[in-house]
């Protein structure tokens, strides 16, 4: 207090000399942690079951790298692309005036958020058991035909063998992407709703249609709210590709590591390898997310908006005060 006062009075204050606050607790914590780390390293190094040399030797093998690139990286990218696109569509449907679209969108998010991803993937992987062929056409065609005395009426437009299409990669992709779309829809919906109502009104007043104002005015502004959680979703998706083991998708990192482990009876080292790979991959994404969030957090963002809102609020109360009116605002 005193030093502060003198420093403002004097032209050139002399440097402040004070004994800094000591933090003995920190040193105790460091000591405790050092012991714990030493114990952990001891555990890792002295236990032969970890078999480090074996792990390092196996974890860079071509099938594993291929599984990583296709089953993990490519799958994450594709599932997120489809998930985000479909998610935007579902979110827009959810917010539409059309009660049928709204209902369908609600049903969609309800279903795909209620069923666990693992179960969903198992279902998609085994859908071939139910229908060997998947066909599109007039529903109940054979049954309708019988009503009119036609035997075995078939009004199928096109179809494909589910064994050809819905196995492995495609089944996994479909499962992950459809489920992701449900979560993304919620994120996009929150983003759209975060945009000030006045923006929509201004665009409407200019004569824009709903689609136009969504695309040009609302969604670009919703992005700031949508992008950070989408980063989280991408990281979660990357980790969830390990669930593809249950489809099963064979060209996938965890499937491959697991297979090597079971084949060689060295299960644990391969699980550790999986940990290390996922740590590595998610760390890359975390760095990317850091920069994305920094980018979208700056500029005219939340602070500017808050200021504007504040001004609007003071204007409202100020206007009422000016006119000195009574009654509900």
């Amino acid at each position, binding site marked *: 207090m005193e030093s502060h006062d003198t420093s403002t009075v004097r032209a050139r204050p002399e440097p402040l000399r004070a004994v800094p606050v000591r933090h003995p607790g920190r040193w105790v914590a460091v000591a405790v942690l050092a012991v714990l780390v030493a114990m952990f390293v001891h555990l890792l190094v002295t236990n032969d079951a970890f078999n480090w040399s074996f792990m390092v030797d196996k974890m860079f093998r071509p099938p594993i790298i291929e599984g990583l690139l296709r089953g993990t990286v490519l799958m994450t990218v594709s599932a997120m692309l489809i998930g985000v696109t479909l998610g935007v569509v579902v979110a827009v449907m959810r917010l539409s005036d059309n009660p049928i679209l709204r209902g369908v969108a609600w049903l969609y998010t309800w279903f795909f958020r209620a069923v666990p991803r693992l179960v969903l993937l198992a279902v998609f992987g085994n859908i071939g058991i139910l229908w060997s062929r998947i066909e599109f056409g007039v529903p109940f065609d054979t049954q309708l035909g019988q009503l009119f005395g036609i035997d075995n009426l078939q009004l199928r437009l096109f179809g494909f063998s589910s064994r050809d299409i819905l196995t492995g990669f495609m089944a996994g992709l479909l499962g992950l992407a459809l489920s992701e779309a449900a979560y993304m829809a919620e994120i996009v919906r929150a983003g759209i709703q975060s945009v000030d109502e006045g923006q929509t009104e201004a665009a*409407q*007043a200019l*004569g*824009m*249609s709903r689609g136009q104002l969504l695309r040009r005015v609302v969604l670009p502004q919703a992005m700031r709210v949508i992008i950070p959680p989408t980063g989280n979703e991408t990281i979660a998706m990357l980790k969830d590709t390990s669930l593809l083991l249950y489809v099963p998708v064979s060209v996938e990192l965890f499937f491959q590591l697991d297979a090597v482990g079971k084949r060689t009876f060295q299960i644990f080292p391969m699980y550790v390898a999986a940990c290390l790979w996922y740590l590595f991959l998610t760390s890359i994404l975390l760095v990317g997310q850091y920069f994305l969030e920094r980018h979208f957090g700056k500029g005219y963002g939340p602070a500017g908006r808050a200021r504007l809102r504040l001004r*609007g609020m003071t204007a409202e109360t100020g206007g009422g005060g000016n006119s000195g009116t009574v009654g509900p605002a």
Partner: protein
Amino acid sequence: MSELIPGQAGAPAAESRTGAPADGTGLMVRAEQVHKSFGSLEVLKGIDLQVRAGEVCCLLGPSGSGKSTFLRCINHLEKINAGSIRVDGELIGYRERGGRLHEMREKEVAAQRRSIGMVFQRFNLFPHMTVLGNVTEAPVLLGREKKAAARERAAQLLERVGLGDKLGAYPGQLSGGQQQRVAIARALAMRPKLMLFDEPTSALDPELVGEVLDVMKDLARDGMTMIVVTHEIGFAREVGDTLVFMDGGVVVESGDPREVIANPRHERTRTFLAKVL
């Protein structure tokens, strides 16, 4: 260059003031028995209002009297429950066919709104676009103008509202008064025949009110038909052709602004004016 409304280029202000008949009646806006409820709350209880082409109509009234709601009904941002609103002879939001009313599709409503400009209390500029982008967005997107032509006209409009040097700025970098002037230019870019202002200066610091009112006076002088919700009595007295006082969802009294302000006939008008003046 000197006229703010290119659509009426060359037309002497005085001529459009006297009201070049738009549909034979000379009325730009004709509202009849407009009713509007939000749920069980009846906000508008039968509003009748006529605004001649080229006129400035000032709407006055206490908070909650339904001024904003009525203004929003005029460009169908709110659906009315009963009555009718015509702008330039055209029924808003509905089509008459075979003696029956048909609700318009969203697209048709959007098309109607294009000839009605609206300016909001809180500006509602698009924060992710530059000033130029804000003004050119709608004309280009809606196919009114090619990009180059729209930019040129936007630059002219912005010059006219005194912001010729702010084309590349973002709304967040402007003062409230500047933002509101951009909002006016944005509305004018669609070449509206009618402009609606909902308390355009209430969100502004006192020293910024004048610059916005000046632009509006300019616009009025050029013969734009305007409906202005405002508490600026000075503005109403100076440029208003009619003053309409609303309270509790009805028009309490209306007439020449100077007349109404000087000797209001109704008690409610008198108490309100006493508080505002």
